[in-house]
């Protein structure tokens, strides 16, 4: 398995009134083609900041150091213009809350096709067809009609499907899914996970799956990175991390998952 995406010693620093604070500290990991890396940790552990940092999407004032390479090409330090051609094109993102992540003022078709046209060019008509095909691929029924609908006219699960359709419309080599199932109910979660796994197997896209839910990670990821307060606590194959956690924090996280056979004091 060749390494598609290599992150080494990634550190993200925010200036505060009490001096600079590292919110991500020396994080290193690799993602291969067809491979899924799960990044897991509680809120504020630096998972999302890691994802935003690799695409240069951090809030103003944040500083990054280390190395982020996609197919051997260094991304950190690239100009905004160069990064734009990577975003959505080579590396795509799916965010947590699909309702607020889609612009309520435009149809989903336009939001998919504007991205396709930006990276691939072509006519409005052909971009629209791409949008319809993308919606069809993620299982939106009647895509030719739905393409002209607005985000609020879709259900929560469908909206996340739209986000995934958008993220995959330019056939990126890496997909970063930042808590894509957190805002959804359990049955819809399962459907979205199934869809992601299926799309990944057909497209060969590498994936970084960020979540606080260990159960989700165990079902989807080959490798796992556990983070806490910006520190990479444990990194290894899913099997290693889940069956023989080396770090106390990972054990704690695993113990925090409720099990069906747990005894509960009523």
């Amino acid at each position, binding site marked *: 398995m060749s390494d598609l995406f290599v992150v080494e010693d990634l550190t993200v620093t925010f200036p505060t009134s009490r001096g600079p604070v590292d919110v991500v500290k020396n994080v290193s990991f690799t993602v291969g083609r067809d491979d899924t890396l799960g990044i897991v940790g509680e809120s504020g552990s630096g998972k999302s900041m890691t994802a935003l940092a690799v*695409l240069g*999407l951090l809030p103003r004032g944040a500083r990054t150091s280390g190395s982020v390479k996609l197919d051997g090409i260094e991304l950190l330090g690239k100009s*905004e213009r160069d*990064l*734009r*051609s*990577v*975003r*959505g*094109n080579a590396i*795509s*993102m799916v*965010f947590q*809350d699909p309702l*607020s*992540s*889609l*612009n*309520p*003022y*435009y*149809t989903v078709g336009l939001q998919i096709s*504007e*991205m396709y046209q*930006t*990276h691939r060019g072509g006519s409005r008509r052909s971009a629209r067809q791409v949008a319809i095909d993308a919606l069809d691929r993620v299982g939106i029924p009647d895509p030719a009609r739905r393409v002209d609908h*607005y985000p*609020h*006219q879709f259900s929560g699960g469908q909206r996340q499907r739209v*986000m995934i359709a*958008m993220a995959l419309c330019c056939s990126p080599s890496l997909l970063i899914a930042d808590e894509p199932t957190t805002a959804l109910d359990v049955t819809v979660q399962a459907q979205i996970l199934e869809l992601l796994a299926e799309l990944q197997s057909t497209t060969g896209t590498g994936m970084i799956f960020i979540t606080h839910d260990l159960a989700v990670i165990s079902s989807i990821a080959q490798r796992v990175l556990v983070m806490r307060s910006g520190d990479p606590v444990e990194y290894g194959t899913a099997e290693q991390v889940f069956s023989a956690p080396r770090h106390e924090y990972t054990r704690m996280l695993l113990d925090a998952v409720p099990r069906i056979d747990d005894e509960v004091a009523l």
Partner: protein
Amino acid sequence: MTRYVLGRLGSVVLILLAVCLFTYLIFFKLSPDPAVMICGKTCTPDRIDSIRNVLGLNQPLLSQFWEFLRGIFVGRQYGSVHCPAPCLGYSFQTNESVWSMITARLPVSVTVAVGAAVLWLLAGVIGGLVSAIKQGTWWDRSAMALALGGVSVPNYVLALVLQYVLVVKLQVLPFPAAVSFVDNPVVWFESYLMPWVVLAVGYACLYARLTRSNVIDTLSENYYRTARAKGLSGSLIMRRHALRPALTPITTIFGMDFAGLLGGALITETVFGLNGIGKLAADSIAKNDQPVIMAVTLLAAFFVVIGNVVVDLLYTALDPRVRVVST
């Protein structure tokens, strides 16, 4: 959609009717007897009676109101004088038809309102936008401080200061004169420039602050982050994913402000001696000229109510979320 529009228009008719009734009651019933006022100093009880008769003041209140409403749509009879529709009565002071007084002055008020609106929209929205993009810089801070100052200055003060500086001291502008655009566009423009600026300053400052905070709010929206993550160009992100959502709420405020101004900019018109609806209102109040007061009040209410409906309908076009609820 058609049902929504019809519903809105129906409510407009009801609101205007209610405004009519209240204005009528306030100005004709609670103020001094119009017949006595028209009659003047050399008055006899007989004369007062005959005036009451002509104006229909001795009839029951509801039928008087009905006559007034009928007058607006089909015209009415004052003794031997026929007042053609739309009839708003005759001025107690000049005997002039109120409708012709209004139509003669409306173009002035519309010119003042349109010119000022163009200025304040351009200055306010562009200023606010630049401030939002350059948030926290010296430009942002000084622009917002200036805006706060601008909102705080009463426009009659600004009007007098501008007149003193530009007309009296520097003599770069003439004192506003009633010149039509067709006769002399240059003098026309120079005459309206000061009223436009004076009226626009307060609004522009308010709009700059509004635009700035709306744009800043939008820049922290998740869909703005998505637009960046999609790799769209800077101008496309700005135009589609920041400006459109940020400026849509401003439409509402603009519609209301502009409609309010069409009913006359009372202070600005009076200070600059422009014969618009605002000055007509001020003059008629000073002279207790009830039919004129009544007419300008109704006109202002009419513009505000219509402005409100236009904004509502425009909103259904601008915000798809409203559109669906309304159908």
